[in-house]
């Protein structure tokens, strides 16, 4: 029953798409079939995989930096309270503000390069990663800390055996959310910068009116991001088995 409904909703979506392509809402609108054919062609020609590899470099560079800097910074903010109270204001601002506005500045500073898109990815994802790590530490149950202190835990043991494990779920959730923001930043950067990766493929297809190729690349991008995020979600659940 549940499965039937879910399948029905996917089928309904494909039908709606097919219908929209036939009507035609806009002559720029390829059918699902045409999109799949274009996708297959893009995969076999290698163009799509090349673009994906390029995009993956910016993503890994930017998000890796966000994770490696953001988590320790968040932990520091949580453990050393005065640092947290000040730093969180800036992190909060970065979360609430449309960071895309900073992109022209990044491009001016770093030029049109992979580094630019990596920096943009970093700016998009790092605040969320940091804020969650901070929140995770701040929300450690005081009772647990008292218990550990009562058993004579040292400061190192306190952080390693109580604070980190209890903050882990929040940290992981922050990494997953940060990664989804990283994808958003990556695409904005590449669509604006154009000469790299999936964004370039999308933009050149568009400018050459190859809308089936453009749709195929967009579809691929969304599926890829979905798959990566789902994979991370699975890793997260494995690491947090004790919560079940």
């Amino acid at each position, binding site marked *: 029953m*549940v499965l039937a*409904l*879910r399948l029905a*909703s*996917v089928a*309904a*979506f494909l039908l709606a798409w097919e219908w929209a392509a036939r009507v035609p*809402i*806009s002559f*720029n*609108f390829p059918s699902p079939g045409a999109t799949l054919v274009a996708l297959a062609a893009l995969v076999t020609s290698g163009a799509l995989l090349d673009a994906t590899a390029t995009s993956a470099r910016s993503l890994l560079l930017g998000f890796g930096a966000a994770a490696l800097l953001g988590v320790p910074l968040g932990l520091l903010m949580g453990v050393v309270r005065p640092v947290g*109270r*000040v730093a*969180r*204001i*800036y*992190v*909060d*601002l970065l*979360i*609430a*503000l*449309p*960071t*895309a*506005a*900073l*992109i*022209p*500045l990044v491009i*001016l500073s770093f030029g049109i390069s992979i580094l630019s898109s990596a920096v943009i990815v970093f700016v998009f994802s790092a*605040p*969320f990663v940091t*804020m*969650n790590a901070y*929140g995770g530490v701040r929300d450690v149950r005081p009772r647990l800390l008292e218990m550990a202190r009562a058993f004579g835990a040292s400061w190192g043991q306190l952080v390693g055996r109580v604070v980190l494990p209890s903050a882990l779920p929040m940290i992981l*959730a*922050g990494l*997953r*959310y940060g990664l*989804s923001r990283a*994808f*958003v930043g*990556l*695409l*904005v950067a590449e*669509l*604006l910068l154009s000469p790299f990766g*999936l964004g370039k493929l*999308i*933009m050149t297809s*568009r400018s050459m009116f190859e809308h089936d190729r*453009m*749709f195929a690349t*967009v579809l691929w*991008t*969304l599926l890829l*991001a*979905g798959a990566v*995020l789902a994979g991370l979600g699975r890793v997260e659940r494995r690491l947090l088995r004790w919560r079940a």
Partner: protein
Amino acid sequence: MTGAGADRQFGVAGLGAVAGLLAAWEIVGRLDVSLFVPPVSGIARVWWGLLADGTLPGAAASSLLSLVKGFVPAAVLGVAVGLAMGRFATVRLLLDGWVNALMSAPLSALVPVLIALFGVRDTVVAATVFMFSFFVVVVNTTTGVRATERSLVDMARLFGAGELALFGRIYLPSALPAVMLGLRLGAVQAVKGMVVGEMLISLVGLGERLIYYGNTFLILELYAVIGSVLLLALLISQAAQTLDRALVRWR
């Protein structure tokens, strides 16, 4: 986890922090360390000029119009869909896969698709605003409805409430704090969508100014527009928060 810190008040500490940042910036700017850190006073002067000659007000008006055209439908439809998903398991099963997937998807990739559909027009910006904000509203509304206490529903049914009364008197008020949170996070997302959409079509609004000043290397003007965008985002987020406080007093 739908938006981490976005739901917090910036308040006095926030103002202090921003003032501190600006002061430090001014000092570094005066020392002429880098081309990219011009003194704040210089930016302020240019900002005032752009304000006076109508550049910023014009761009901001266009931006706000797109924002309203995208966010109002997203809010109305988002709450409606969220209520339906929260109340009816069938609707939920039909839609929750899509909503969860699209909620975390890089929807910026869809902007070129929107351009293919609508052409290079400000409709694309409104549509981007809609995409960016709709799903947060849906998810939070659904969560709110589903968290309604069973015993409240029982109580209302005991006194003869029908489906309509249950909706209006139990589910909706009970979900209201979550709905408001969704709308607040949605408003923040909407501003992000607005900027992304405008930058990508590069035709109208503050986003177009960002691209233009970036391309023409007018650093002071670029900073002035960035500052305006940030200010606008802060004002909208504060307005949403004030509205929330006013509506959900019983907490």
